[in-house]
């Protein structure tokens, strides 16, 4: 479903250059839940943001659902992005619109008529379990509730891929479990391919079917759990324990 081939990204500021991602290749199959872990500053967010080209790679290609995003026109890219949802650590809701107003945005942009719009909004608010807050403004909601709204907003255009950048990092453990359940449910119900960046190991062990470890801009491991299983904590500790000293690009399968 997602195929990154030798993507690199260097940030150039007035007095420095920093290579955030260095020739990374990654394949994520349809229906997988793929975790990306690694220490802060390793380049996880940059890598994730290259999947929908929020960050355009300096080199390499990004193929999603058989289409090469790096060679698309701006208009075509906007259309491609509509089949990819994204959620963030800080939710990024439009705070001057109500909950249902937020979820309606992607449908408004796609020109869907009002009646169908409000039905779809309700359907997805119901799916994330927050339909009773439809007319509230986001600032009145808890973090977990806001993230549910963000998930509904990302899903309402029925994407094939959901990109998650530390979606539970600002939430307490109990709320985290709730959000992870929603994400798992999405994956099972709609077959959405999920890529999730996290630094929390329990996120990986509770839902990921494949996982990559990033360090200093490189992917140093990619690991796939046995069919039908999620990554176990033993696998994870084995991967992270041998993290240093492993050749770049080496893979455990």
């Amino acid at each position, binding site marked *: 479903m997602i195929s990154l081939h030798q993507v690199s990204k260097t940030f150039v500021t007035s007095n420095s250059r920093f290579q955030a991602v260095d020739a990374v290749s990654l394949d994520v199959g349809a229906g997988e839940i793929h975790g990306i872990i690694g220490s802060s500053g390793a380049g996880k967010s940059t890598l994730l943001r290259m999947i929908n080209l929020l960050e355009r790679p300096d080199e390499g290609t990004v193929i999603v659902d058989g289409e090469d995003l790096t060679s698309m026109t701006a208009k075509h890219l*906007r259309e*491609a992005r509509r089949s990819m949802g994204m959620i963030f650590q800080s939710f990024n809701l439009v705070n001057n619109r109500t909950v249902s107003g937020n979820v309606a945005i992607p449908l*408004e942009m796609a020109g869907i008529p009002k009646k169908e719009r409000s039905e779809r909004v309700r359907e997805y608010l119901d799916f994330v379990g927050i339909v009773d807050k439809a007319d509230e403004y986001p600032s009145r909601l808890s973090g977990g509730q806001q993230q549910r709204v963000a998930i509904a907003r990302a899903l309402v255009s029925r994407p094939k891929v959901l990109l998650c950048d530390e979606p539970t990092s600002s939430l307490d453990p109990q709320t985290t479990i709730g959000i992870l359940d929603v994400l798992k449910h999405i994956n099972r119900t709609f077959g959405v391919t999920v890529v999730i960046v996290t630094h929390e190991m329990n996120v990986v062990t509770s839902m990921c079917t494949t996982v990559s470890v990033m360090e200093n801009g490189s992917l140093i491991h990619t690991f796939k759990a046995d069919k039908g299983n999620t990554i176990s904590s033993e696998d994870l500790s084995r991967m992270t324990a041998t993290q240093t000293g492993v050749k770049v690009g080496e893979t455990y399968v």
Partner: protein
Amino acid sequence: MFDYIMQYQSEIWHAIGETFMMVGISIAAALVLGLPVGTLLYLCRKGQMYENRVLFAILNILVNVVRSFPFLLLVVFLIPFTRFVVGTAIGTLAASVPLSIMAIAYYSRLVEQSLLEVPKGVIEAASSMGASTLQMIVKFLYVEARSGLMLGLTTSTISFISYSTVMGIVGGGGIGDFAIRYGYQRFETEIMIFTIIIMLILVQAIQYTGSFMARVLDKR
């Protein structure tokens, strides 16, 4: 004293009408042209969506030049332009031209500042949803910045009223001109004080209404 002032009632109403016309046209100019110019300043700024050094530098300098021009000199300097636009350089409509130019520059800067306060994350979310530039502006930027845009318009309107008081020099009239002609030049101090009170009430009312609306619009 009241009777004394009442004898000028029709002149006062007329002057208020002229002020409303000049300020009204300036507000319209601020909205129709200042808002897009401010948006363009924001979009072309370093690190923003359409970073464009040349366009940003041109707009930025234009806005700064207009804003730093002593206003009376701007009015005089623009006389040929005013004549070109409305056919005459004299009268209330003509006076609205330099006032509108100032209004565009003034409000565009406040628009730029309000838009800069929109969190980057919201813009990112918009991009990730495949928003076009127009959708980004209308559905995200203006929605999140709307209380700042409203407050900016309030501040601007009050400045336009202040600028409009000197429009007597090109026959623009207005309550400022009325106060100068009757209150100052004819030594009718009561008239002067009365018009100052009218202006104070007007400015207070605008500030109160603007702040109230900004508060109602702000759900953040």
